[in-house]
Protein backbone atom coordinates (compact mmCIF):
# COMPACT_ATOMS: atom_id res chain seq x y z
CA UNK A 1 0.00 0.00 0.00
CA UNK A 2 1.70 3.19 -1.08
CA UNK A 3 0.88 6.78 -0.34
CA UNK A 4 -0.75 8.81 -3.08
CA UNK A 5 2.24 10.95 -3.96
CA UNK A 6 4.42 7.87 -4.06
CA UNK A 7 2.57 6.57 -7.11
CA UNK A 8 4.87 8.09 -9.81
CA UNK A 9 7.88 6.81 -7.87
CA UNK A 10 6.43 3.35 -7.55
CA UNK A 11 5.51 3.34 -11.26
CA UNK A 12 9.03 4.24 -12.27
CA UNK A 13 10.44 1.61 -9.93
CA UNK A 14 8.18 -0.96 -11.56
CA UNK A 15 9.36 0.16 -15.01
CA UNK A 16 12.98 -0.38 -14.03
CA UNK A 17 12.21 -3.85 -12.73
CA UNK A 18 10.42 -4.65 -16.01
CA UNK A 19 13.33 -3.33 -18.01
CA UNK A 20 15.85 -5.48 -16.14
CA UNK A 21 13.69 -8.54 -16.61
CA UNK A 22 13.31 -7.79 -20.30
CA UNK A 23 17.02 -7.24 -20.76
CA UNK A 24 17.78 -10.51 -19.03
CA UNK A 25 15.21 -12.47 -20.97
CA UNK A 26 16.36 -11.02 -24.26
CA UNK A 27 20.04 -11.15 -23.41
CA UNK A 28 20.17 -7.49 -24.33
CA UNK A 29 22.63 -5.00 -22.86
CA UNK A 30 20.48 -2.17 -21.45
CA UNK A 31 22.97 -1.26 -18.72
CA UNK A 32 23.26 2.36 -19.76
CA UNK A 33 19.52 2.87 -20.22
CA UNK A 34 18.75 1.34 -16.86
CA UNK A 35 21.43 3.42 -15.20
CA UNK A 36 19.82 6.58 -16.55
CA UNK A 37 16.41 5.46 -15.34
CA UNK A 38 17.81 4.81 -11.88
CA UNK A 39 19.34 8.25 -11.73
CA UNK A 40 16.04 9.66 -12.78
CA UNK A 41 14.27 7.66 -10.07
CA UNK A 42 16.61 8.98 -7.43
CA UNK A 43 16.01 12.54 -8.61
CA UNK A 44 12.27 11.98 -8.66
CA UNK A 45 12.35 10.66 -5.08
CA UNK A 46 14.50 13.50 -3.93
CA UNK A 47 12.33 16.12 -5.57
CA UNK A 48 9.14 14.51 -4.35
CA UNK A 49 10.32 14.38 -0.77
CA UNK A 50 11.82 17.82 -0.81
CA UNK A 51 8.56 19.25 -2.00
CA UNK A 52 6.13 17.27 0.07
CA UNK A 53 3.31 19.34 1.41
CA UNK A 54 2.87 19.25 5.15
CA UNK A 55 -0.20 17.12 4.77
CA UNK A 56 1.75 14.63 2.66
CA UNK A 57 4.36 14.53 5.36
CA UNK A 58 1.65 13.69 7.90
CA UNK A 59 0.95 10.67 5.73
CA UNK A 60 4.60 9.67 5.63
CA UNK A 61 4.79 10.03 9.40
CA UNK A 62 1.86 7.63 9.70
CA UNK A 63 2.83 5.35 6.82
CA UNK A 64 2.42 1.61 7.16
CA UNK A 65 5.83 0.00 7.36
CA UNK A 66 7.43 3.00 9.05
CA UNK A 67 9.59 1.60 11.85
CA UNK A 68 7.81 1.59 15.21
CA UNK A 69 9.08 1.98 18.74
CA UNK A 70 9.64 -1.75 19.09
CA UNK A 71 11.66 -1.87 15.87
CA UNK A 72 14.03 0.72 17.29
CA UNK A 73 14.17 -1.04 20.65
CA UNK A 74 14.99 -4.36 19.01
CA UNK A 75 17.74 -3.01 16.81
CA UNK A 76 19.32 -0.15 18.71
CA UNK A 77 19.51 -1.54 22.22
CA UNK A 78 20.99 -4.74 23.54
CA UNK A 79 19.74 -6.74 26.49
CA UNK A 80 16.39 -4.92 26.57
CA UNK A 81 14.34 -6.03 29.56
CA UNK A 82 10.80 -4.81 29.47
CA UNK A 83 9.39 -3.59 32.77
CA UNK A 84 5.63 -3.52 33.03
CA UNK A 85 3.02 -1.75 35.05
CA UNK A 86 2.50 1.47 36.93
CA UNK A 87 1.91 -0.20 40.33
CA UNK A 88 -1.33 1.69 40.68
CA UNK A 89 -3.79 1.48 37.80
CA UNK A 90 -2.61 -1.14 35.37
CA UNK A 91 -0.33 -2.05 32.51
CA UNK A 92 -0.61 0.04 29.37
CA UNK A 93 0.67 -1.71 26.23
CA UNK A 94 0.65 1.61 24.34
CA UNK A 95 3.88 2.46 26.14
CA UNK A 96 6.74 0.00 26.18
CA UNK A 97 9.38 0.64 28.81
CA UNK A 98 12.42 -1.11 30.11
CA UNK A 99 16.11 -1.12 30.83
CA UNK A 100 18.76 -1.93 28.26
CA UNK A 101 22.34 -1.45 27.23
CA UNK A 102 23.35 1.24 24.80
CA UNK A 103 26.89 2.22 23.97
CA UNK A 104 28.37 0.56 27.08
CA UNK A 105 25.90 2.25 29.37
CA UNK A 106 22.62 1.20 30.96
CA UNK A 107 19.67 3.23 29.79
CA UNK A 108 15.95 3.49 30.40
CA UNK A 109 13.91 3.30 27.21
CA UNK A 110 10.31 4.38 26.78
CA UNK A 111 8.54 4.00 23.48
CA UNK A 112 5.01 4.68 22.35
CA UNK A 113 3.96 1.80 20.16
CA UNK A 114 1.15 2.15 17.63
CA UNK A 115 1.47 -1.41 16.39
CA UNK A 116 2.55 -3.00 13.14
CA UNK A 117 -0.64 -4.81 12.16
CA UNK A 118 -4.31 -4.60 13.03
CA UNK A 119 -4.02 -7.03 15.89
CA UNK A 120 -1.14 -5.15 17.45
CA UNK A 121 -2.84 -1.81 16.70
CA UNK A 122 -5.76 -2.88 18.85
CA UNK A 123 -3.58 -4.35 21.58
CA UNK A 124 -1.53 -1.15 21.67
CA UNK A 125 -4.59 1.09 21.35
CA UNK A 126 -2.83 2.67 18.35
CA UNK A 127 -0.24 4.12 20.71
CA UNK A 128 -2.83 6.22 22.54
CA UNK A 129 -1.90 5.98 26.18
CA UNK A 130 -4.17 5.71 29.18
CA UNK A 131 -3.40 7.20 32.59
CA UNK A 132 -1.74 3.90 33.55
CA UNK A 133 0.75 4.46 30.75
CA UNK A 134 1.72 7.90 32.00
CA UNK A 135 1.98 6.56 35.53
CA UNK A 136 4.23 3.83 34.19
CA UNK A 137 6.38 6.51 32.58
CA UNK A 138 6.60 8.37 35.89
CA UNK A 139 7.64 5.18 37.63
CA UNK A 140 10.34 4.60 35.03
CA UNK A 141 11.63 8.15 35.43
CA UNK A 142 12.02 7.52 39.16
CA UNK A 143 13.82 4.24 38.54
CA UNK A 144 16.09 5.94 36.01
CA UNK A 145 16.94 8.66 38.50
CA UNK A 146 17.70 6.20 41.26
CA UNK A 147 20.05 4.09 39.15
CA UNK A 148 21.45 6.91 37.03
CA UNK A 149 20.07 5.57 33.78
CA UNK A 150 19.90 8.08 30.93
CA UNK A 151 16.36 8.20 29.59
CA UNK A 152 15.57 7.74 25.93
CA UNK A 153 11.99 8.22 24.81
CA UNK A 154 10.57 7.43 21.40
CA UNK A 155 7.43 9.39 20.62
CA UNK A 156 4.76 8.08 18.27
CA UNK A 157 1.17 8.82 19.15
CA UNK A 158 -1.73 10.80 17.79
CA UNK A 159 -2.37 11.78 21.41
CA UNK A 160 -3.48 10.54 24.80
CA UNK A 161 -6.63 8.43 24.67
CA UNK A 162 -9.85 10.43 25.14
CA UNK A 163 -12.33 8.20 26.94
CA UNK A 164 -14.49 7.94 30.01
CA UNK A 165 -12.12 5.72 32.00
CA UNK A 166 -9.18 7.94 31.07
CA UNK A 167 -10.98 11.02 32.39
CA UNK A 168 -12.05 9.18 35.53
CA UNK A 169 -8.47 8.28 36.26
CA UNK A 170 -7.20 11.81 35.70
CA UNK A 171 -5.73 11.79 32.21
CA UNK A 172 -4.92 15.50 32.47
CA UNK A 173 -3.34 15.16 35.87
CA UNK A 174 -1.08 12.23 34.96
CA UNK A 175 0.13 14.03 31.86
CA UNK A 176 0.96 17.07 33.98
CA UNK A 177 2.71 14.86 36.52
CA UNK A 178 4.66 13.10 33.81
CA UNK A 179 5.79 16.41 32.33
CA UNK A 180 6.84 17.53 35.79
CA UNK A 181 8.60 14.30 36.75
CA UNK A 182 10.50 14.13 33.48
CA UNK A 183 11.60 17.74 33.89
CA UNK A 184 13.10 16.78 37.26
CA UNK A 185 15.29 13.97 35.90
CA UNK A 186 18.86 14.21 37.13
CA UNK A 187 20.05 12.05 34.24
CA UNK A 188 20.37 12.88 30.54
CA UNK A 189 17.09 12.63 28.66
CA UNK A 190 16.76 12.36 24.90
CA UNK A 191 13.51 12.25 22.96
CA UNK A 192 13.18 11.16 19.36
CA UNK A 193 9.91 11.85 17.58
CA UNK A 194 9.89 8.80 15.33
CA UNK A 195 6.46 9.22 13.80
CA UNK A 196 3.71 11.36 15.17
CA UNK A 197 4.10 13.64 18.16
CA UNK A 198 0.52 14.31 19.16
CA UNK A 199 -0.11 17.03 21.69
CA UNK A 200 0.16 16.64 25.48
CA UNK A 201 0.08 12.89 25.06
CA UNK A 202 3.44 13.16 23.34
CA UNK A 203 4.90 16.00 25.40
CA UNK A 204 4.36 14.00 28.58
CA UNK A 205 7.36 11.87 27.64
CA UNK A 206 9.23 14.52 25.62
CA UNK A 207 10.57 16.93 28.23
CA UNK A 208 14.11 16.01 27.32
CA UNK A 209 17.47 17.74 27.23
CA UNK A 210 17.52 17.11 23.51
CA UNK A 211 14.47 16.61 21.33
CA UNK A 212 15.28 15.03 17.98
CA UNK A 213 12.90 14.38 15.15
CA UNK A 214 13.00 12.20 12.08
CA UNK A 215 12.83 14.15 8.85
CA UNK A 216 9.29 13.08 8.00
CA UNK A 217 7.90 13.00 11.52
CA UNK A 218 5.45 15.58 12.77
CA UNK A 219 4.89 17.13 16.18
CA UNK A 220 1.85 19.24 16.83
CA UNK A 221 -0.37 20.81 19.44
CA UNK A 222 -3.36 19.10 17.85
CA UNK A 223 -3.93 16.65 15.02
CA UNK A 224 -4.72 18.32 11.69
CA UNK A 225 -8.06 16.53 11.64
CA UNK A 226 -9.14 17.81 15.06
CA UNK A 227 -7.84 21.28 14.31
CA UNK A 228 -9.83 21.38 11.10
CA UNK A 229 -12.94 20.16 12.90
CA UNK A 230 -12.66 23.02 15.37
CA UNK A 231 -11.37 25.94 13.33
CA UNK A 232 -12.81 25.09 9.90
CA UNK A 233 -15.74 23.19 11.40
CA UNK A 234 -14.91 20.43 8.93
CA UNK A 235 -12.46 17.60 9.60
CA UNK A 236 -12.01 17.24 5.86
CA UNK A 237 -10.04 20.49 5.84
CA UNK A 238 -7.20 18.67 7.62
CA UNK A 239 -4.87 19.47 4.75
CA UNK A 240 -5.31 23.20 5.36
CA UNK A 241 -4.91 22.68 9.08
CA UNK A 242 -1.71 20.69 8.56
CA UNK A 243 -0.37 23.54 6.48
CA UNK A 244 -1.32 26.15 9.08
CA UNK A 245 0.01 24.22 12.07
CA UNK A 246 3.60 24.12 10.80
CA UNK A 247 4.10 20.68 12.18
CA UNK A 248 7.01 19.36 10.12
CA UNK A 249 10.54 18.73 11.32
CA UNK A 250 11.84 21.73 9.42
CA UNK A 251 9.15 24.05 10.85
CA UNK A 252 9.84 22.84 14.36
CA UNK A 253 13.59 23.28 14.06
CA UNK A 254 13.03 26.89 13.04
CA UNK A 255 10.91 27.43 16.15
CA UNK A 256 13.55 25.72 18.37
CA UNK A 257 10.96 23.16 19.40
CA UNK A 258 13.28 20.42 18.21
CA UNK A 259 17.04 20.48 18.41
CA UNK A 260 17.99 18.27 15.51
CA UNK A 261 16.49 16.65 12.45
CA UNK A 262 17.52 13.07 11.73
CA UNK A 263 17.69 12.40 8.02
CA UNK A 264 15.60 9.58 6.65
CA UNK A 265 16.58 7.32 3.76
CA UNK A 266 15.42 8.59 0.40
CA UNK A 267 11.74 7.81 -0.01
CA UNK A 268 11.04 7.79 3.72
CA UNK A 269 11.84 5.56 6.69
CA UNK A 270 9.23 3.02 5.63
CA UNK A 271 11.18 2.35 2.42
CA UNK A 272 14.33 1.40 4.29
CA UNK A 273 13.64 0.89 8.00
CA UNK A 274 17.13 -0.32 8.81
CA UNK A 275 18.70 2.83 7.42
CA UNK A 276 16.32 4.98 9.48
CA UNK A 277 17.05 2.97 12.59
CA UNK A 278 20.79 3.32 12.02
CA UNK A 279 20.47 7.08 11.68
CA UNK A 280 18.48 7.29 14.88
CA UNK A 281 21.01 5.14 16.73
CA UNK A 282 23.84 7.33 15.53
CA UNK A 283 22.05 10.53 16.55
CA UNK A 284 21.16 9.24 20.02
CA UNK A 285 24.72 8.10 20.55
CA UNK A 286 26.17 11.46 19.58
CA UNK A 287 23.75 13.38 21.75
CA UNK A 288 24.21 11.08 24.71
CA UNK A 289 27.99 11.42 24.58
CA UNK A 290 27.57 15.17 24.86
CA UNK A 291 24.95 15.03 27.64
CA UNK A 292 27.03 12.58 29.65
CA UNK A 293 29.49 15.42 30.14
CA UNK A 294 26.98 17.42 32.18
CA UNK A 295 26.47 16.91 35.88
CA UNK A 296 23.04 16.67 37.55
CA UNK A 297 22.67 20.39 38.17
CA UNK A 298 23.75 21.22 34.63
CA UNK A 299 21.32 18.73 33.16
CA UNK A 300 18.46 20.24 35.14
CA UNK A 301 19.51 23.72 34.22
CA UNK A 302 19.97 22.97 30.53
CA UNK A 303 16.56 21.29 30.35
CA UNK A 304 14.91 24.14 32.16
CA UNK A 305 16.42 26.77 29.90
CA UNK A 306 15.65 24.76 26.79
CA UNK A 307 11.92 24.87 27.48
CA UNK A 308 11.86 28.18 29.31
CA UNK A 309 12.78 30.12 26.22
CA UNK A 310 10.13 28.61 23.94
CA UNK A 311 7.38 30.98 22.89
CA UNK A 312 7.06 34.08 20.72
CA UNK A 313 5.63 37.37 21.88
CA UNK A 314 6.23 41.08 21.66
CA UNK A 315 6.79 43.84 24.17
CA UNK A 316 3.74 46.07 24.31
CA UNK A 317 4.11 49.79 23.75
Amino acid at each position, binding site marked *: MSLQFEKPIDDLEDKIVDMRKYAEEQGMDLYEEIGLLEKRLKRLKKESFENLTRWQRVHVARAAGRPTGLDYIDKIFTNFNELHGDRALGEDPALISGIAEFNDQSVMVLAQQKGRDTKENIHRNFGMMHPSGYRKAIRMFALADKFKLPVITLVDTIGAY*PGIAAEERGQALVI*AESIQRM*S*ELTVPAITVVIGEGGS*GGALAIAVANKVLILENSIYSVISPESCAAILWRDAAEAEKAAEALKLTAKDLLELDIVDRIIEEPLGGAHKDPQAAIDSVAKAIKEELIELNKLDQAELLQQRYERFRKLGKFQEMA
Partner: protein
Amino acid sequence: MALDRWFRRKKPNRKDDDKSPSGLWIKCDSCENQVYRKDIIANLHLCPDCNHHYRMPVDDRMEMLIDEDSFEQWSGTIGPVDPLGFVDLKTYPERIKAAQDSHKYPDAILTGAGLLDNQRVAIAIMDFSFNGGSMGSVVGEEIARAAERAAEEERAFITVAASGGARMQEGALSLMQMAKTTMSLAALASKRLPFISILTDPTSGGTTASFATLGDIIVAEPKALIAFAGPRVIEQTIKQELPEGFQRSEFLLNNGMLDDVINRKELKQKISKYINLLLANRTTIKVKHVPAI
Protein backbone atom coordinates in the same frame (compact mmCIF):
# COMPACT_ATOMS: atom_id res chain seq x y z
CA MET B 1 -18.69 33.38 25.92
CA ALA B 2 -20.65 33.09 29.11
CA LEU B 3 -21.91 36.59 28.43
CA ASP B 4 -23.79 35.36 25.38
CA ARG B 5 -26.11 33.44 27.57
CA TRP B 6 -26.98 36.39 29.70
CA PHE B 7 -28.71 38.13 26.83
CA ARG B 8 -30.79 35.20 25.78
CA ARG B 9 -34.05 36.48 27.08
CA LYS B 10 -35.49 39.55 28.72
CA LYS B 11 -38.04 39.36 31.43
CA PRO B 12 -41.09 40.25 29.34
CA ASN B 13 -43.15 42.13 31.88
CA ARG B 14 -40.42 44.30 33.28
CA LYS B 15 -41.68 47.69 34.20
CA ASP B 16 -38.74 50.05 34.44
CA ASP B 17 -37.09 51.27 31.31
CA ASP B 18 -33.45 50.63 32.11
CA LYS B 19 -32.08 49.50 28.71
CA SER B 20 -28.43 49.18 29.73
CA PRO B 21 -27.02 45.62 29.65
CA SER B 22 -26.71 45.61 33.39
CA GLY B 23 -30.38 46.36 33.67
CA LEU B 24 -31.59 43.34 31.78
CA TRP B 25 -33.42 40.36 33.16
CA ILE B 26 -32.06 36.98 32.29
CA LYS B 27 -33.36 33.50 32.77
CA CYS B 28 -30.97 31.62 35.07
CA ASP B 29 -29.22 28.72 33.32
CA SER B 30 -29.77 26.57 36.32
CA CYS B 31 -32.96 27.43 38.22
CA GLU B 32 -34.57 29.11 35.18
CA ASN B 33 -35.87 31.94 37.36
CA GLN B 34 -35.92 35.41 35.88
CA VAL B 35 -33.06 37.17 37.56
CA TYR B 36 -31.93 40.77 37.36
CA ARG B 37 -28.50 40.76 35.78
CA LYS B 38 -27.17 43.47 38.07
CA ASP B 39 -28.04 41.27 41.04
CA ILE B 40 -25.94 38.46 39.65
CA ILE B 41 -22.96 40.72 39.11
CA ALA B 42 -23.29 42.22 42.55
CA ASN B 43 -23.46 38.71 43.97
CA LEU B 44 -20.00 37.58 42.75
CA HIS B 45 -21.65 36.40 39.53
CA LEU B 46 -23.71 33.88 41.43
CA CYS B 47 -27.43 33.41 40.86
CA PRO B 48 -29.10 34.99 43.91
CA ASP B 49 -31.81 32.34 43.74
CA CYS B 50 -29.91 29.07 43.20
CA ASN B 51 -26.25 29.94 43.71
CA HIS B 52 -25.40 28.90 40.13
CA HIS B 53 -21.79 29.88 39.44
CA TYR B 54 -21.54 32.07 36.36
CA ARG B 55 -18.19 32.73 34.76
CA MET B 56 -16.43 35.69 36.28
CA PRO B 57 -14.44 38.45 34.55
CA VAL B 58 -10.76 38.53 35.50
CA ASP B 59 -10.87 41.89 37.22
CA ASP B 60 -13.85 40.87 39.32
CA ARG B 61 -12.05 37.66 40.21
CA MET B 62 -8.97 39.58 41.23
CA GLU B 63 -11.01 41.99 43.32
CA MET B 64 -12.77 39.11 45.00
CA LEU B 65 -9.55 37.38 46.01
CA ILE B 66 -7.09 40.21 46.60
CA ASP B 67 -7.39 42.71 49.44
CA GLU B 68 -8.55 46.16 48.40
CA ASP B 69 -5.93 48.44 46.89
CA SER B 70 -3.19 45.87 47.33
CA PHE B 71 -2.97 44.58 43.76
CA GLU B 72 0.13 45.30 41.72
CA GLN B 73 -0.24 44.15 38.14
CA TRP B 74 2.67 42.20 36.66
CA SER B 75 1.23 41.07 33.35
CA GLY B 76 0.38 43.17 30.34
CA THR B 77 3.81 44.20 29.10
CA ILE B 78 3.88 41.51 26.44
CA GLY B 79 1.38 40.68 23.76
CA PRO B 80 0.81 37.94 21.21
CA VAL B 81 2.45 37.74 17.79
CA ASP B 82 1.70 35.46 14.86
CA PRO B 83 4.68 33.12 14.75
CA LEU B 84 3.23 30.70 12.20
CA GLY B 85 1.34 33.11 9.97
CA PHE B 86 -1.72 31.16 10.94
CA VAL B 87 -4.84 31.41 8.83
CA ASP B 88 -8.03 29.50 9.27
CA LEU B 89 -11.39 31.10 8.51
CA LYS B 90 -9.79 34.30 9.80
CA THR B 91 -6.15 35.20 10.29
CA TYR B 92 -4.74 34.86 13.77
CA PRO B 93 -3.93 38.62 13.91
CA GLU B 94 -7.58 39.34 13.14
CA ARG B 95 -8.70 37.08 15.94
CA ILE B 96 -6.25 38.67 18.32
CA LYS B 97 -7.29 42.16 17.35
CA ALA B 98 -10.95 41.36 17.82
CA ALA B 99 -10.24 39.95 21.26
CA GLN B 100 -8.01 42.81 22.28
CA ASP B 101 -10.55 45.38 21.06
CA SER B 102 -13.13 44.02 23.45
CA HIS B 103 -10.78 43.38 26.36
CA LYS B 104 -8.66 45.42 28.68
CA TYR B 105 -5.60 43.17 28.63
CA PRO B 106 -3.49 42.05 25.65
CA ASP B 107 -4.10 38.34 26.16
CA ALA B 108 -6.10 35.84 28.20
CA ILE B 109 -4.22 36.37 31.42
CA LEU B 110 -3.87 38.74 34.32
CA THR B 111 -1.04 38.27 36.80
CA GLY B 112 0.21 40.29 39.69
CA ALA B 113 1.08 40.53 43.34
CA GLY B 114 -1.11 41.48 46.25
CA LEU B 115 -2.32 40.65 49.68
CA LEU B 116 -4.85 37.95 50.39
CA ASP B 117 -6.13 38.42 53.91
CA ASN B 118 -2.89 40.26 54.55
CA GLN B 119 -0.75 37.40 53.26
CA ARG B 120 1.66 38.16 50.44
CA VAL B 121 0.64 36.26 47.32
CA ALA B 122 1.11 36.24 43.59
CA ILE B 123 -1.83 35.38 41.40
CA ALA B 124 -2.47 34.42 37.79
CA ILE B 125 -6.02 34.57 36.49
CA MET B 126 -7.00 33.21 33.09
CA ASP B 127 -9.63 34.91 30.98
CA PHE B 128 -11.93 32.43 29.26
CA SER B 129 -13.68 35.24 27.40
CA PHE B 130 -10.44 36.06 25.56
CA ASN B 131 -10.06 33.50 22.77
CA GLY B 132 -11.45 30.75 24.96
CA GLY B 133 -8.77 31.32 27.58
CA SER B 134 -6.40 29.48 25.29
CA MET B 135 -2.79 29.19 26.41
CA GLY B 136 -0.35 30.50 23.83
CA SER B 137 3.10 32.00 24.26
CA VAL B 138 1.90 35.05 26.19
CA VAL B 139 -0.28 33.17 28.66
CA GLY B 140 2.48 30.62 29.23
CA GLU B 141 5.15 33.25 29.62
CA GLU B 142 3.10 35.35 32.04
CA ILE B 143 2.32 32.32 34.20
CA ALA B 144 5.95 31.21 34.22
CA ARG B 145 7.13 34.71 35.05
CA ALA B 146 4.60 35.03 37.81
CA ALA B 147 5.59 31.68 39.36
CA GLU B 148 9.27 32.52 39.19
CA ARG B 149 8.76 36.00 40.59
CA ALA B 150 6.51 34.65 43.33
CA ALA B 151 9.34 32.32 44.32
CA GLU B 152 11.86 35.13 44.19
CA GLU B 153 9.70 37.39 46.34
CA GLU B 154 8.70 34.49 48.63
CA ARG B 155 5.00 34.71 47.91
CA ALA B 156 2.44 31.94 47.84
CA PHE B 157 1.20 31.39 44.29
CA ILE B 158 -2.41 31.11 43.22
CA THR B 159 -3.73 30.37 39.77
CA VAL B 160 -7.32 30.62 38.63
CA ALA B 161 -7.70 28.42 35.56
CA ALA B 162 -10.34 28.95 32.89
CA SER B 163 -9.25 27.70 29.52
CA GLY B 164 -10.24 25.69 26.51
CA GLY B 165 -6.68 24.42 26.23
CA ALA B 166 -3.68 25.26 24.11
CA ARG B 167 -3.92 28.03 21.53
CA MET B 168 -3.92 26.20 18.22
CA GLN B 169 -2.94 29.28 16.24
CA GLU B 170 0.53 29.21 17.78
CA GLY B 171 0.98 25.53 16.96
CA ALA B 172 3.59 23.55 18.86
CA LEU B 173 4.76 26.73 20.58
CA SER B 174 1.51 26.59 22.55
CA LEU B 175 2.15 22.96 23.40
CA MET B 176 5.51 23.96 24.82
CA GLN B 177 3.81 26.31 27.27
CA MET B 178 2.61 23.21 29.10
CA ALA B 179 6.22 22.28 29.79
CA LYS B 180 7.25 25.84 30.53
CA THR B 181 4.52 26.58 33.05
CA THR B 182 4.98 23.20 34.71
CA MET B 183 8.71 23.67 35.05
CA SER B 184 8.34 27.17 36.47
CA LEU B 185 6.64 25.65 39.52
CA ALA B 186 9.93 24.06 40.62
CA ALA B 187 11.13 27.42 41.86
CA LEU B 188 8.21 27.58 44.28
CA ALA B 189 8.66 24.01 45.44
CA SER B 190 12.34 24.48 46.14
CA LYS B 191 11.40 27.24 48.56
CA ARG B 192 8.45 25.39 50.06
CA LEU B 193 6.04 28.07 48.89
CA PRO B 194 2.46 26.87 48.50
CA PHE B 195 0.92 26.72 45.07
CA ILE B 196 -2.87 26.70 45.19
CA SER B 197 -4.68 25.94 41.97
CA ILE B 198 -8.29 27.01 41.55
CA LEU B 199 -10.14 25.40 38.66
CA THR B 200 -13.17 27.22 37.30
CA ASP B 201 -15.67 26.57 34.56
CA PRO B 202 -14.39 25.49 32.09
CA THR B 203 -10.83 24.20 32.27
CA SER B 204 -9.66 21.66 29.75
CA GLY B 205 -6.90 20.45 27.45
CA GLY B 206 -3.37 21.69 27.83
CA THR B 207 -4.17 23.87 30.82
CA THR B 208 -5.65 21.00 32.81
CA ALA B 209 -2.74 18.83 31.68
CA SER B 210 -0.05 21.15 33.00
CA PHE B 211 0.36 23.61 35.87
CA ALA B 212 -3.33 23.68 36.80
CA THR B 213 -3.39 20.13 38.18
CA LEU B 214 -0.05 20.42 39.94
CA GLY B 215 -1.15 22.49 42.90
CA ASP B 216 -0.13 21.54 46.40
CA ILE B 217 -3.82 22.01 46.89
CA ILE B 218 -6.28 21.90 44.00
CA VAL B 219 -9.81 23.14 44.42
CA ALA B 220 -12.66 23.84 42.04
CA GLU B 221 -15.82 25.85 42.01
CA PRO B 222 -19.06 23.85 42.03
CA LYS B 223 -20.13 22.15 38.80
CA ALA B 224 -17.19 23.48 36.80
CA LEU B 225 -16.34 21.48 33.69
CA ILE B 226 -12.81 20.17 34.16
CA ALA B 227 -11.46 17.84 31.54
CA PHE B 228 -8.53 16.68 29.52
CA ALA B 229 -10.54 15.92 26.41
CA GLY B 230 -13.78 17.87 26.19
CA PRO B 231 -17.12 16.04 26.31
CA ARG B 232 -17.72 16.42 22.57
CA VAL B 233 -14.40 14.83 21.67
CA ILE B 234 -15.12 11.91 23.96
CA GLU B 235 -18.64 11.42 22.68
CA GLN B 236 -17.30 11.33 19.15
CA THR B 237 -14.65 8.79 20.15
CA ILE B 238 -16.82 6.41 22.11
CA LYS B 239 -20.05 7.02 20.20
CA GLN B 240 -22.24 7.15 23.26
CA GLU B 241 -23.68 9.74 25.58
CA LEU B 242 -21.76 10.71 28.67
CA PRO B 243 -23.12 10.12 32.15
CA GLU B 244 -24.74 12.98 34.07
CA GLY B 245 -22.22 15.13 35.88
CA PHE B 246 -19.29 13.66 33.96
CA GLN B 247 -16.19 15.89 34.15
CA ARG B 248 -17.82 18.25 36.62
CA SER B 249 -16.08 19.31 39.84
CA GLU B 250 -18.01 16.89 42.01
CA PHE B 251 -17.09 14.03 39.67
CA LEU B 252 -13.43 14.93 39.97
CA LEU B 253 -13.68 15.23 43.75
CA ASN B 254 -15.21 11.78 43.88
CA ASN B 255 -12.44 10.43 41.67
CA GLY B 256 -9.79 11.76 43.98
CA MET B 257 -8.53 14.53 41.72
CA LEU B 258 -9.52 17.54 43.84
CA ASP B 259 -8.83 18.52 47.40
CA ASP B 260 -12.18 20.21 47.65
CA VAL B 261 -15.05 21.87 45.82
CA ILE B 262 -15.62 25.33 47.22
CA ASN B 263 -18.45 27.76 46.87
CA ARG B 264 -17.24 31.06 45.41
CA LYS B 265 -18.43 32.95 48.46
CA GLU B 266 -16.09 30.93 50.67
CA LEU B 267 -13.22 30.79 48.26
CA LYS B 268 -11.12 33.65 49.56
CA GLN B 269 -11.45 32.55 53.14
CA LYS B 270 -10.53 28.97 52.29
CA ILE B 271 -7.49 29.91 50.22
CA SER B 272 -6.41 32.20 53.00
CA LYS B 273 -6.56 29.34 55.49
CA TYR B 274 -4.64 26.99 53.21
CA ILE B 275 -1.85 29.48 52.74
CA ASN B 276 -1.74 30.34 56.38
CA LEU B 277 -1.56 26.70 57.42
CA LEU B 278 0.99 25.71 54.81
CA LEU B 279 3.29 28.60 55.61
CA ALA B 280 3.03 28.52 59.39
CA ASN B 281 5.91 26.10 60.00
CA ARG B 282 7.98 27.17 57.05
CA THR B 283 11.63 27.67 57.59
CA THR B 284 13.47 29.79 55.08
CA ILE B 285 16.02 27.04 54.50
CA LYS B 286 16.23 26.16 50.84
CA VAL B 287 15.61 22.58 49.85
CA LYS B 288 17.99 21.04 47.39
CA HIS B 289 16.42 19.81 44.21
CA VAL B 290 16.80 16.09 44.84
CA PRO B 291 14.38 13.56 43.41
CA ALA B 292 12.89 10.86 45.57
CA ILE B 293 14.92 7.69 45.55
